[in-house]
């Protein structure tokens, strides 16, 4: 038996990634949404470079938040609708680990592309060069936490009426701490203050979420199947 749970874990990830590739448009949509929101902010605020560079970190984080939130409802909804959820609950791997595998694949297909494209957006927004590396580190630490926390909301809304709007009401308040530390890390780097404390906080949030969120999501999924 040893080694087998890992194989099952990997096969969940492989299935999710395969589905993401087959429905490739979904990932592209999230990235384009991210881009469009940033550009909307740009047009709304006006092209004055000083203001833009001052609020660049905030705009990128808010847009990332909204993109992750939008992508969240596809995490468990298809499995709930086609009956796969029952079989996932009945499979040999604990549901918490299946959830973790699904969240990881979700991050790979949504959070990760956002990280890749974020330097380009920082350029659009006239962000100072010292901010780039910190922005990347903060996003690497922060976006998995967004996926983890969002998974709880995604599991809770299964079978609800108007689930899309409901999801945003539930999880956006929970995203606030991640955004605050993410933005303040970049702002610190831009003003030549040490960005280490907020980055450490982001790391702490990630580790906490890594332990608690799969457990809470699995509990929510079990009650959804009942």
């Amino acid at each position, binding site marked *: 038996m040893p080694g087998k749970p890992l194989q099952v874990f990997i096969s969940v990830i492989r299935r999710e990634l395969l589905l993401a590739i087959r429905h490739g448009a979904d990932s592209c949509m999230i990235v384009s949404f991210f881009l469009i929101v940033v550009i909307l902010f740009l047009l709304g605020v006006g092209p004055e470079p000083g203001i833009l560079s001052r609020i660049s970190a905030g705009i990128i984080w808010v847009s990332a938040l909204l993109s992750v939130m939008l992508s969240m409802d596809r995490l468990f909804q298809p499995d709930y609708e086609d009956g796969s959820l029952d079989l996932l609950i009945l499979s040999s791997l604990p549901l918490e680990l299946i959830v973790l595998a699904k969240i990881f694949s979700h991050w790979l297909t949504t959070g990760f592309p956002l990280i890749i494209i974020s330097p380009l957006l920082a350029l659009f927004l006239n962000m100072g060069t010292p901010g780039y590396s910190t922005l990347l580190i903060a996003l690497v630490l922060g976006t998995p936490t967004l996926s983890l926390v969002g998974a709880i909301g995604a599991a*809770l809304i299964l079978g609800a009426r108007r689930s899309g709007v409901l999801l945003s009401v539930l999880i956006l308040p929970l995203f606030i701490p991640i955004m605050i*530390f993410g933005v303040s890390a970049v702002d610190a780097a831009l003003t030549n203050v040490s960005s280490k404390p907020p980055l450490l906080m982001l790391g702490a949030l990630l580790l906490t979420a890594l332990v608690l969120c799969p457990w809470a999501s699995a509990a929510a999924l079990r009650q959804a199947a009942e």
Partner: protein
Amino acid sequence: MFNYFANPFRFLRLTSKLQPITMLVALAAIGLGLFYALVESPPDYQQSETVRIMYVHVPAAWMAMFCYVTIACSSAVALIWRHMLANIIAKSTAPIGASFTFLALATGSLWGKPMWGAWWVWDARLTSMLILFFLYLGYIVLYNAFDDQSRGARAAAILSIVGVINIPIIKFSVDWWNTLHQPASVIKINGPTVHPSMLTPLMLMAVGYMALYFWLLFIRTRAELNINKVRKMLIQQTETH
């Protein structure tokens, strides 16, 4: 003990006695508290008369926190021991807690005008309170978002537990955000240094709010239990005929 009080009949009998008592305590304590707050206590040397808003605002903020923790605790009981009554208590507490949160926000905003010259200031406490208000809204919306009531109850129970773990994190992050963006010149009320003449009305108001909460809770839970009873009877009627 849970099992003893979880019996709805016993709960109804007990609360029918407690309901008038809590009503009297609430009215007396709030009445007396308001008298002390508005007439008896001295004006503050810095804030003069506006300090009197504090007696309405601070206990409301306390109750806002208390109610959310109550929801989370009874939700945990409902999830673990599957007691119907714990769900009903959580459900009934939510609108009361949301109202206390709203009261704290409204009075905080009123307080802000004479103090900072604006109806809304992004002060750390007010911001946290606002986020708490959204957590309440999320809970209430999720509870009612399902056609199957028990589904909504269980989903909302999990959400409230996630929320209660998040409250300290949100509070900390908002404090952090606030110190970054605002100079520390904002006047703050420091709890322990409050003068006894101010403490009496504050405590009276706190007791009054607490009694008010239980009074409203008993009314709501009793109504909820009766609704359940009627629904059950309707189901039985339609199925036997």
